[in-house]
């Protein structure tokens, strides 16, 4: 199935869900990180220029650290997010969806070079596109994956309609459909909602605004409105 959902069952018997992130946002996040890194290196280069050769030495050490350990630091200390990943709402986690550990982060970032080969991250991109969870080679060896960090949703309000008991024998499937229409009253356009409500005209015997209001009232009741 073409689905990026990643499921893990916890010891408590709960299925955790996450959405694996594909190559495109990851490449963009990487580009942002490269940009930040070059920015820091350029800044350091200017600051250390007057220290001459000693400054050059310090700069080389810094560039070494940035090249290999910049992602490690952010992944472990900042909840799996480098600044680039943060910009695209991504995070790195272990494949049991626990926060990434030092060992796994070091491994996946050292093996970054294998993903880079033979040029321009070709191996990594091929591996990502072939893998069900978009793992590059380093991810597979370290047992990590990159997922979307779910954004905080504001809880939506329910429409302001007096609840109304549904007719007898309303099936579970139908109940769920009505509830979901009620819940999404803020997301769908008004015209589309009226159109959807009109589909039920043979059942409700109402049309347009009246049908929609009736369905919302039923939905409110089903959700426990009094």
């Amino acid at each position, binding site marked *: 199935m073409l689905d990026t959902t990643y499921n893990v069952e916890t010891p408590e018997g709960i299925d955790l869900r996450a959405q694996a992130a594909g190559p495109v946002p990851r490449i963009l996040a990487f580009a942002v990180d490269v940009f930040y890194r070059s920015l820091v290196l350029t800044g350091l280069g200017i600051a250390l220029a007057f220290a001459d050769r*000693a400054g*050059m030495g310090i700069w080389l050490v810094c560039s070494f650290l940035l090249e290999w350990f910049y992602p490690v630091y952010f992944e472990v200390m900042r909840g799996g997010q480098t600044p680039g990943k943060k910009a695209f709402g991504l995070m790195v986690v272990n494949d049991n969806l626990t926060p990434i550990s030092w060992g796994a982060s070091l*491994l996946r970032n050292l093996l970054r070079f294998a993903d880079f080969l033979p040029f321009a991250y070709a191996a990594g991109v091929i591996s990502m596109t072939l893998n069900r969870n978009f793992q590059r080679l380093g991810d597979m*060896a370290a047992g990590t994956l990159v997922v979307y960090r779910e954004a905080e949703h504001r809880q939506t309000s329910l429409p302001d309609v007096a609840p109304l008991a549904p007719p007898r024998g309303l099936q579970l499937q139908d109940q769920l459909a009505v509830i979901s229409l009620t819940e999404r009253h803020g997301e769908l356009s008004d015209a589309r909602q009226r159109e959807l409500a009109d589909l039920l005209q043979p059942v409700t015997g109402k049309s347009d605004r009246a049908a929609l209001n009736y369905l919302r009232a039923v939905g409110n009741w089903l959700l426990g*409105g009094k």
Partner: protein
Amino acid sequence: MKQRDFENRYEDRWNALEQWLQSGEGTLDLPVAYRALCQQLAVAKERQYTNQLIDRLNRLVMAAHHRVYQQQTLRRNTWLWYLLAGFPRAVRAQIRYVWLATALFVLPALVMGIGSYSNDALIYAVMSPDQVMQFESMYDPGNSVLGRERGSDSDLMMFGFYIKNNIGIAFRTFAAGLLFGIGAIFFLVFNGVYLGAVFGHITRVGFVTTFYPFVIGHGAFELTAIVLAGAAGLRLGQSLIDPGGRRRLVALRLASIEAMKIVYGTFLMLVIAAFLEAFWSSSTELAIAVKLAVGAALWLLVFAYFALAGRGVDGDGHKELRSGS
């Protein structure tokens, strides 16, 4: 129970947990709260409450799950144990790959070394004439300084250079091993050929009194570390070629745990090597005999470390040492 009632009943607890996860404020028994939350999520799913509620609970469970199952890997004593016993034991455990990597590095070096010692032109097969000139001028006994033109502050510059360059080479050698070992083999042979050519050529032109005292000291750490990084890379590659009775992914996962035990050590060795190369090997004030003697002692030390360190402690001793101090 209607969803509204369900939400109203637990809303306060969810908010308290959310607050605690974000700011750590308030008192909360996390395991208890987490278990209760898991139960509530299961109930919500079973009763087919709306996606919005389930998503919210799922998010909350995930955040709490992260907190409950946080892995704490860094313990002070682990590092001490690693230095005293873990690293040499890891190397001995993979001794087949270490020998293989040594052969892949030393044999091409020997062939190239003997070749360019007996044939003046051979070095130009791997290096441009400019590079050869540069190497010759670096180790010309007529020079007052060794290695490169040096002021005191350029020691620091060279230190930075060795860190970036040499550790980068070791990491790449290791990582490239993931491609069925081919990358590690390539880097080992390539570096062996290059090194052999320089050794052979410099010996041929007779700059022995400057060259060998310069390289012997840090070579003990640098060359062994490159070989060990290659061995770790070969271990990765081998797990993909011959995973045994496991799936390749699982074999790779297990092999990389073993390999990383070696890689941490090579990193430390190369930092030591960079220190020696920048601040000790290049010194011109020390007598050649002193440098040779210290260099030989360092080689002995490195070999003794890998052959002997950590032999006394077995798996149980490891645990004792970890929890003991």
